[in-house]
């Protein structure tokens, strides 16, 4: 039996001036999948990502998430539907503690408004605290809870970002180039961690620039080149696909700082 389709992208395009950053992409993600999205620099991965999460409106085409068309939705509305994302260039809240960073995800999902603040809604605060703590424990940052986020190492900030996304209790988690800037050991640890998230029942879309990580952990890999989807298959098939090899030719083992 086929699992439910969570995310359905149909003929999605985005034009920036004369540039077609995303060109007629059709794809779907099913419940429980761990899918990779790869492509060379400038292939349109981040644009596609921003289209899906509501940060950029599409020029044409549609994105349907959990049966709802996301057209015209703002990022916070998309997030409340259960889609959480991390950012390629690490966007944490530096002047807040590790715990407070993560709590923002829980606040966004559970809600804690003016009224709750003024009336000191203890029950709601407790639910947020518990969820933030749980997310911190899942990424292994619980012992740094009271530390200012600005004091964390680069690698730990990555996990902080993931914890913040997990605190929204997402149905679909999209990781934007989580391995960027990590060394081989750290990347291997991250691979292990993502696999565990997936094993715990998460549906994950992993957007990566580097093939290695995606090929080693994903069940299915989509390849983007010049804004168009050129492959969508199991890792071993994708690796043998001549079209993919050509798109990556000469740049397949480039800088991976």
């Amino acid at each position, binding site marked *: 039996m086929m699992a439910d389709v969570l995310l359905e992208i149909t003929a999605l395009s985005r034009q920036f001036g004369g540039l077609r950053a995303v060109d007629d992409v059709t794809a779907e993600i099913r419940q429980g999948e761990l899918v990779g999205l790869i492509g060379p620099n400038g292939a349109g991965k981040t644009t596609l990502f921003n289209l899906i*999460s509501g*940060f950029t409106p599409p020029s044409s085409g549609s994105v349907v998430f959990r049966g709802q068309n996301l057209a015209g939705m*703002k*990022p*916070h509305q998309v*997030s*409340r539907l259960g889609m*959480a*994302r991390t*950012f390629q260039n690490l*966007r944490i*809240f*530096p*002047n*807040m*503690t590790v*715990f*407070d*960073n993560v*709590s*923002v*995800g*829980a*606040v*966004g*999902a559970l809600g*804690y*408004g*003016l009224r*709750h*603040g*003024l009336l*000191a809604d*203890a029950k*709601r*605060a*407790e639910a*947020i*605290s518990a969820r*933030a*703590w749980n997310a911190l424990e899942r990424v292994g940052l619980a012992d740094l*809870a*009271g530390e*200012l986020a600005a004091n964390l190492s680069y690698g730990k900030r990555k996990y902080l970002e993931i914890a*913040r*996304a997990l*605190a*929204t209790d997402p149905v679909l988690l999209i990781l934007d180039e989580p391995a960027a800037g990590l060394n081989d050991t750290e990347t291997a640890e991250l691979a292990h961690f993502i696999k565990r998230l997936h094993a715990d029942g998460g549906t994950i879309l992993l957007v990566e620039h580097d093939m290695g990580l995606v090929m080693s952990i994903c069940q299915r890999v989509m390849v983007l080149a010049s804004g168009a989807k050129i492959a969508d298959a199991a890792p071993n098939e994708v690796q043998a696909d001549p079209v993919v090899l050509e798109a990556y030719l000469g740049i397949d083992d480039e800088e991976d700082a």
Partner: protein
Amino acid sequence: MAVNASKPLLRQLGLLAVLFGAIPAALTLIGGGYPFQVGITALIFVTLAVSLNLVTGTAGLLSLGHAGFFGVGAYAAALTATKLHWPFLLTLPFAGLVAAALGVIVALPTMRLISIYFAVATLGVGEMIHVSLLNWVSFTRGPMGIRSIPPIEILGFDLSGVVGGYYVAAVVAALAIFAVHRLTHSYYGNALRSLREDDQCAAAMGLNPVRLKIEAFAVSCAIAGIAGAVYAHTASFISPDSFRFEESILILAMIVVGGLGSVPGAIVGSVLLIVLPEVLRGIGDFRMIAVGVFMFLSILFLPKGLLGEASAIGLARRQLGAAWRGDIGAGWK
């Protein structure tokens, strides 16, 4: 555990005892009338500073027109009290309401702007308010100001003297501090701080940045308006001169010196910048230079303020028992 749980309560009661007992006692000892007058001014500016701190310090929206909303509240109270003979208990909330409504009107089109443009927009609004108060003579009496604003009387109790005025200003300041404390030292505060740090990222976490900013701004303006009502009724005379850009900058300086985002910092900063010039009266015209030097040095040596945000938040968590888990200083109750 029981002992630990009662400690924060004792501390809060202690703070109230200082505000309502120790300070008035000290002011009486120093010499009655004038010191109480300074006390009232300080409390009004404490109220203004904590309210500005919510929107500028915590939510990161630089507002350069706060004195304008203070003025709108003062005029709303003065006009309803003199023309419609409303009692203080009515003019006070009305002043807050009018200022908040104006805040929402200003915020709706400007909250989508990036920070510096919002700052310039509030600067313009502050100027517009001042110029309106000055030139709309038929309504505000323009530069002549409004005279004989009735003194404070609550349910038959005459609080017209400076001591009565002090207690009213103290109650209003305490309530404003409590409200801002609740909003700052809670998950609502975390939401506002996350907007200041990175509002796009906060949106990706499910927060609605525009709505939150408008809300915070409206609350801030409401408190400023209420402070205006206290000012109008305790001063009995108001004129547009008290609500200029200079006052907006003074309130901003208070929260910067105290520590942006820090509630105790806003209190300390405003008390210092009101009391210091009074204490220094002995050195005559040099006193404003001395105050300037103090501000310059405090920013030079303590750029995060006398009581920076991080330490203020730690204080709220540990001393006032606002933490979810006090042992690791994390979360909010």
